[in-house]
């Protein structure tokens, strides 16, 4: 797109203006749609009260640990599935059954296992994000060039050497795509599990503010969550572009 970057985001600005106008001019009730400026004010108040940051840290901690574990184990499992046929025969049917499972159904199960705290959210995010990562790694590693593998072997590389130096890099693009899916999924699972059962975190804060009727604050936290998710995706994309620069050469 050749439009200047500032011009590009004008539509979003227009939407924001419409929002502000709609509630200021009483087109929509200010309860259902508090003006954007009061939402911004509520956001600043939430930060000053020390409500937003601790809850955000709690949420991000859960997300980071769960996602980190799923990336680590998922990519190892996926690459082994592609590399070693017996692993594939055992794991593939399990993946096939659990892949279509709507991961939100695991929320009450993880609560039964680990209670209301951090551990149940981390387990939920780990279980939910593991499969996209595994499938990405599997598809990527399966597509790795046989000739490269043979020539590495011919030059005397051991099995693990080949896995690490040839198969893993060529699995990278698909793996990174899978991780992007997992990243989006981790936020969905985090927020929904926090809205349903928890004692802290951004989803919990949204629920509390909504129940107390302070809708400005609720809108503020909802937008915060939305933009954290957006920012995480953008940051991830930027990192991936750097990491995959060798591919373009």
């Amino acid at each position, binding site marked *: 797109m050749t439009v200047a970057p500032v011009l*590009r985001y004008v539509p*979003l600005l227009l*939407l924001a203006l419409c929002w502000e106008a709609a509630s200021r001019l009483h087109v929509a009730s200010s309860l259902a749609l508090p003006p954007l400026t009061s939402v911004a004010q509520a956001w600043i108040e939430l930060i000053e009260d020390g409500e937003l940051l601790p809850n955000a840290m709690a949420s991000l901690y859960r997300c980071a640990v769960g996602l980190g574990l799923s990336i680590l184990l998922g990519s190892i499992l996926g690459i082994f599935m592609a590399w070693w046929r017996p692993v594939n025969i055992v794991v593939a049917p399990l993946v096939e059954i659990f892949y279509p*499972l709507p991961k*939100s*159904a695991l929320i009450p199960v993880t609560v039964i296992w680990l209670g209301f705290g951090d551990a149940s959210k981390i387990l939920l995010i780990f279980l939910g994000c593991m499969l996209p990562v595994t499938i990405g790694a599997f598809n990527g590693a399966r597509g790795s060039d046989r000739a490269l593998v043979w020539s590495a072997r011919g030059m005397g590389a051991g099995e693990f050497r080949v896995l690490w130096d040839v198969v893993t890099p060529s699995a990278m693009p698909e793996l990174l795509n899978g991780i992007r899916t997992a990243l989006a999924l981790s936020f*969905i699972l985090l927020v929904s599990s926090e*809205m*349903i059962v928890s004692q802290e975190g951004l989803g919990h804060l949204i629920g509390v503010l909504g129940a107390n009727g302070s809708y400005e604050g609720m809108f503020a936290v*909802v937008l915060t969550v939305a933009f954290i998710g957006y920012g995480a995706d953008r940051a991830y994309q930027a990192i991936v572009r750097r990491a995959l620069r060798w591919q373009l050469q």
Partner: protein
Amino acid sequence: MSASASLARVVATSGVLLARSSAIIVLLAGWELFARSGKVTMFVLPPLSAVVERVWADAIGGDLLRNTLLTLYRALAGFLIAAVAGVALGVLIMRSKISRWFFDPIISVGFPMPKIAFLPIIVLWFGVYDLSKISMVVFDAVFPIVTATIIGIQGVERELIWSARGMGASDREAIWQVVLPAALPRILTGLQVALPIALIVAIVSEMTMGGYGLGGAMLTASRFSNSRGVFAALLEITVVGYVLVKGMALLRRRLLVWHAEADSPATA
């Protein structure tokens, strides 16, 4: 000779089939044995047989059918609305410069957002009944469909459109008979991404807003610390998800028999 070769193939494939299903059988047997071993309480992991009994009771009592139909209705109604709206919006964006200028930033910002966070706002606007559940599903499922439609249309060969135009096709004919069929594989991929999302969102909104459905039943069981009920719902939801996703893959194969895409997309 060919008979023995095909016999060998049958033996080999049935061997693989056996190995594949054995993983699942081992998992289920492991569940039953582990739950009965006394290392965990009945609450943490009820034995599979008890869970199946509960599913059976749900099925006979009619709860299973009612909850499954409710969840399917919410997920699929939202999914269908999102599919129609998403494809239409994608076509619109590709056809007019103004709509592209307007929607492009909204979609690129909205797509990666965790839209489930907007759930309390949707509740505030539309209440806790089906309207808000279906709206939430539409809101979440529409983004992958729009982006897939745009990518699909971008990938259509210009020569195809030119030759259709050259043969006298009108704008509308060119879209319906050339552009959309040629973009169909991508669009279907978008739908295949959106369908599980629709189901996830339907279940989460049932969990937060109540109103029966598989998600609602699961949360009610969880509130009463009825772990057999929770695991029964998990089993039911797993089956529903599996059937839906498989059905979508079948539909894809049906719709794309004419396409070069030899077999089903590599998902697993």
